[in-house]
């Protein structure tokens, strides 16, 4: 009886946790995760990024929107280097060097990239 009760409690806990998570995550999150898997990067939520800021850890935050959008407003401490969708396929060697210069030689440094929105 106790065993059944524990199973029920666990199932209900998972169910409520699932509902809570579903409420927090936007509808496009799954699609974003699939894209991240294909492209070889991870996703970070707003809350996780907030924690990064608060922890005052060394990380790079990169705004890939055009410079005139960046100038109108950007995330704290963000650097700017525009990245077009077309550059996902072919990246000009000069632009590649610009990225490498900006991001630095430490390949294990945490880098957070953002554009306008997922859509």
């Amino acid at each position, binding site marked *: 009886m106790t065993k059944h009760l524990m199973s029920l409690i666990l199932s209900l806990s998972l169910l409520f946790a699932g509902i809570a998570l579903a409420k927090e995550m936007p509808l496009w999150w799954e699609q974003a995760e699939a894209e991240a898997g294909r492209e070889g*990067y991870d996703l970070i939520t707003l809350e996780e*990024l907030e924690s990064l800021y608060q922890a005052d850890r060394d990380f790079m935050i990169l705004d890939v929107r055009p410079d*005139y959008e960046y*100038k109108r*407003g950007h995330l704290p401490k963000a650097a700017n280097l525009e990245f077009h969708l077309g550059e996902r396929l072919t990246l000009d060697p000069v632009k590649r060097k610009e*990225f490498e210069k900006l991001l630095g030689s430490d*390949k294990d440094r945490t880098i*957070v990239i953002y554009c306008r929105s997922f859509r």
Partner: protein
Amino acid sequence: MRLGYNRVHRLPHGYFGWRAAHSSGEDVQETLPQLTVGDFFPSCHLVLLSYSRDKDYLQIQHDEKTFSLEDIQSEYILIELYNEYCHQCLKEVKEYKAFYALLTEDSFLHNQVKIMGIGVGSKKRQVAKFRKQQTIDFPLFEKDCSRSIRSYKKQKGATGEGSISGERKGRLVLIMACENILKKKNGG
């Protein structure tokens, strides 16, 4: 693109997601000028990619590879600002092509209105490839001045996604979607 970094994260909410969650931060006031009817068109120099063909169509009198809008010998110029990865732009390309065909058939309007496209974020090779793939007869150009144009807000209430029509001397007279122009032409 792979640069070999091991801890790359994307904030899929983007700038607007962050901004919605944080009203403060390093935001600055929007100070972009707004393009309205009667304004002068932003200064713009372009490079002829299909030299003879485009030079003849635009009736440019000099032999240089670059030109400005003032060099185009027509009363009006319709400019499509497109991006080859934008679905709406691809849809609009069909409308521009149809409008170009209508203009070509009209002996008077053919010399009065010229159409051209500027590939936002595209380089010469991409523009040439896109023109060939989409079988576009009117000239396309790489981004050169698209940034200065994009830096302007569109006229409030304008229906065009990326169409700007202006007088040759640079005064902006109209912003409207090609779809609406076609409807007018067809008496809609």
